[in-house]
């Protein structure tokens, strides 16, 4: 589904990602792990064209190199952020609704005649369904700023899911969550996978990664050092030395 070919990202003389090759298969949870500064988030930012890069990134065999960031959602790619990017002046419902921006059809006449496209029945039902999936049904009228951090992460996840993506990029979704929230998050991600959505996950929490991943790619200093199932990766000596730690 996602094919990263010889991806390199340079920030001046610093090589953030060095000729990375990886493939994310359909309907899997594929984790990208590595120590801080390994280049994991930079890979996400390259996919989203937030940073210039060399090499190529193919989604369903189409190059993403010249696709503007706002075009990715329509192609079926969604993401969440390490530092939340919610719309804090809006309710949870409106935050989720904006995930439907590319598909909700409107025009200038509807805009000035007061048609609120997001209050239409079909859209409301979609919001309700995704809110149910992540457990936000009771909080649709709340403002995210007043919600606990873990719940805010769920709002961002719901916003990313509402447009029925085919590929979901999650950047450290478990960071800052307590163990109960992490368990809940894992359950949701497995349910998301069941619905046919492919997940590319950047995560530091090895408990989360090992429990739900089908395949893991390990990065260090911008390079891929290992790839395999959770069992294979956890036994790889290079990974143990670079990331998991030697006992």
């Amino acid at each position, binding site marked *: 589904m996602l094919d990263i070919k010889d991806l390199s990202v340079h920030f001046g003389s610093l090589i953030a990602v060095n000729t990375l090759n990886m493939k994310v298969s359909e309907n899997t949870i594929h984790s990208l792990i590595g120590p801080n500064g390994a280049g994991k988030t930079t890979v996400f930012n390259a996919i989203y064209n937030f940073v210039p890069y060399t090499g190529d990134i193919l989604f369903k065999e189409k190059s993403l190199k010249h696709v503007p*960031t706002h075009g990715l959602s329509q192609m079926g790619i969604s993401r969440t*952020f390490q530092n939340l990017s*919610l719309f804090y002046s809006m309710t949870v419902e409106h935050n989720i609704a*904006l995930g439907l*921006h590319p598909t909700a059809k409107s025009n200038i006449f509807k805009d000035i005649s007061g048609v609120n496209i997001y209050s239409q029945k079909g859209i409301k039902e979609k919001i309700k369904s995704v809110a149910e999936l992540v457990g936000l049904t009771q909080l649709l009228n709340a403002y995210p700023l007043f919600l606990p951090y873990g719940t805010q992460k769920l709002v961002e996840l719901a916003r990313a899911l509402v447009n029925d993506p085919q590929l979901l990029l999650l950047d450290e979704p478990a960071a800052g969550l307590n163990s109960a929230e992490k368990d809940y998050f894992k359950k949701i991600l497995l349910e998301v996978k069941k619905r046919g959505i492919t997940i590319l996950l950047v995560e530091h929490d090895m408990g989360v990664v090992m429990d739900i991943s089908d395949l893991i790619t390990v990065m260090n200093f911008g390079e891929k050092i290992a790839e395999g199932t959770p069992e294979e990766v956890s036994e790889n000596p290079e990974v143990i030395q670079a990331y998991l730690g030697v006992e």
Partner: protein
Amino acid sequence: MKKITPIILLIIALFIPVFLRERPSLIYYINLSMIYAISAQGLNLLMGIAGQISLGHAAFMAIGGYTSAILVMSFHLPFIIALIGGILVACAFGVIIGFPALRLKGFYLAIATLALGNVVTDIIKRLKITGGDYGLRNIPPPSLFGFELQNNLSQFYLVLGCLLLVIFVTRNFIKSKSGMALQAMRDSETGARAVGINISNYKLLAFIVASAFAGLGGVLYAHSVTYLHPTNFGLGFSIDLLAITIIGGIGTLWGVVLGSFLWVLVRNLMGTGLEVLTGVLFGVILILVVLFLPRGLSEIFFRISNRFKSKEVQEK
């Protein structure tokens, strides 16, 4: 109560000229307040809703006003055509300034818009058709369907109609798909791009709508004041519009109306002898608003209305 309030306000507004028949100068200042409110509503949309900044908003008023006046005086076109022409030309300049805005943010955007204001007034000063440094005088009053709206009283209803239309459009626009996209862009540009919002298009849209409102304000100003001079639309006037928006309540629908009335009426009714005092007064108001009322003076009304609401809930 929420639904009745605008109707009551509208009825009061419609009868204002009847009560003030003996004081046409006061009606003139009310008209001017409404014209400022129309223009400031554009700035409110640009800054309060879309999160962009402009220090050259008065330039769009100048463009609208001069275009309309020239179309009527030099090309003898009917007022309604001139009005549309003024708005369209202001929109076109909105696109021109909107393009650099796609790459600029914060201070840099402020400087770019400030420069636009200066360039526009400078060009107006040098053109023959705009009357150069002499300005345009004896601009005919607005006329609609063969009726010339010569006095302040008849112009009052035209300006009021335009203001209500602008408020209606703004209210609807904020709730619409585009309005929500602008608010998303203001809250988090990264988040907005990630959900598929084309930031460039929406920034341009914000500048176009803001320029359209300023252009309309400029057209009404030209035909109501009947005199245009480039210095009237310099940095000072842009700052006035900014202050009106902040004092009234940035991002609020009625705040700019409140701010405009306060700005124009208090300033002009205190007389020339007390001009220095009004400057100090507004300076103090501006500081107090920024410190204690982030949503401007309209926040006072929100607080009162919330208190009533909570009382009602308690009684239930």
